[in-house]
């Protein structure tokens, strides 16, 4: 299902030539003459000649990012419900597959509530940064540099979560899930963090209730996701090891939440 050469989990890929490369067209259509000439020359030199090489190499490690952005309002609303209240989700947790060009691949997020997407994690991360700024400001400690540090702290937290999930997959011997899938699953924790920080802003004491609650919800969501979707790929089935690792994932959410939801000027804690 996942092959090591850049899995194409979504729509059938059209022939590579007409596919627009959103990162290669940055300098086309620039406005005034001077800027167009200067930027165009540099842009073609930097992005133009190396784009084929970069594209071919990137597609080996990243699946097509377009797949993760095929979302709409309905999906976003329901996915938020699933992420924030995972125990209310009555349906199954596995992704729907469809045969595409002789291979089985997953349906895009519009058609499948269990498919990961990158829109919600990105927006949740942005909301977390903005809410953290508001929280700093209400305590009188706001400065733009502090907000920049919070942005990097959030990125580090996201990276730690990704590496946690990736390590559990490696320790089970299957590292073949697409990287962007794992990035998406790790990014869903920011939705819970946003709720916790929002609680901290509105009423200080609600934080002590909301934070463990969202932490628990995130743990349940991740456990259920990892169990159904990702462990399907694992070759050996070792029941007790599975369960210990899942428990470890759920427990590791707690220090991560403590670290990231504690919004201070001091970067480390």
């Amino acid at each position, binding site marked *: 299902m996942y092959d090591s050469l850049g899995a194409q989990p979504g729509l059938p890929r059209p022939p590579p030539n007409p596919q627009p490369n959103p990162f290669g067209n*940055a300098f086309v259509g620039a406005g*005034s003459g001077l800027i167009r000439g200067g930027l165009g020359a540099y842009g073609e030199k930097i992005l133009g000649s190396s784009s084929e090489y970069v594209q071919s190499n990137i597609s080996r490690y990243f699946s097509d990012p377009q797949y993760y952005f095929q979302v*709409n309002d309905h999906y976003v609303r329901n996915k938020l419900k699933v992420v924030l209240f995972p125990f209310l989700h009555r349906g199954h947790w596995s992704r729907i597959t469809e045969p595409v060009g002789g291979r089985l691949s997953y349906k895009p997020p519009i058609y499948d509530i269990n498919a990961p997407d990158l829109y919600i994690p990105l927006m949740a991360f942005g909301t977390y940064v903005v809410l953290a700024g508001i929280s700093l400001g209400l305590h009188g400690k706001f400065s733009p540099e502090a*907000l920049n540090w919070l942005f990097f702290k959030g990125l580090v937290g996201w990276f730690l979560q990704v590496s946690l999930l990736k390590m559990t997959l490696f320790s089970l011997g299957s590292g073949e899930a697409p990287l962007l899938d794992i990035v998406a699953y790790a990014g869903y924790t920011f939705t819970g963090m946003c709720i916790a920080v929002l609680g901290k802003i509105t009423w200080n004491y609600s934080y002590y209730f909301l934070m463990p609650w969202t932490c628990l919800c995130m743990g349940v969501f991740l456990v259920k996701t990892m169990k159904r979707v990702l462990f399907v790929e694992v070759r050996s089935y070792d029941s007790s090891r599975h369960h210990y690792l899942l428990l470890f994932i759920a427990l590791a959410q707690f220090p991560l939440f403590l670290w990231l939801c504690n919004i201070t000027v001091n970067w480390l804690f």
Partner: protein
Amino acid sequence: MAKEFNVPPVVFPAGGNPGVGVGAAHQRRLPTPPFPPQRFANPSIPFMSFDIGSAAASTSFSAPQFAGNTIGIGSSFEDEPPLLEELGINTRQIWSKTVSIINPFRVNPDLHEDADLSGPFLFLLSFGLFQLLAGKLHFGIILGWVTMAALFLYVVFNMLAGRNGNLDLYRCVSLIGYCMLPMVILSAIALFLPQGGVGILVIAGVFVIWSTRVCTRLLVELASCGDEHRGLIAYACFLIYTLFSLLVIF
């Protein structure tokens, strides 16, 4: 240092020598060039020799051009386009675009068909100046945040729009910059309101919604797709402008 170009001799008018009668030590010496100036001796370097006395009266003054420029000496200055036009700064267009942003309910996307960066530059500069009046030095922060916000919106919009996403980065920066106008007005108003009060929060909320509305509508109309993703894009713009309003409020 060896002289590589012809320099006209400095000629003082006779009788103007102030050193006369003071002493031998203060006697001025006329600086003599190592070689006499050659007038039109070398045709590849069109050198216009001139006297200091006649320079002020001459309207066809032009600096000596050593690059072998074949433009006529007397007409090159008058034939150049005006500076703003050469730089691509169309002040009338900037003004009309600015006025079109002020009305949040009727958005005219045809004016913004032509993206330019000079209007946003003016807005960001005035934003920084109003912040400076409030005692905060935020010019670098504003520049960095606008860059990051434009990249963020560019990625999100093109990914959401899919195969027919044709927003380019230049137009994205231009749109974000123009829709920063309500933030500039907010920072001007914030100078007169007490910091951290309810008034500034309410006004900031209204202005952020104004910015978001204009930006979303312009994006959706100009980039020819994304109508079904209007809410999703609106949230991204909302995040960006809330971020900038934080700079003003706190």
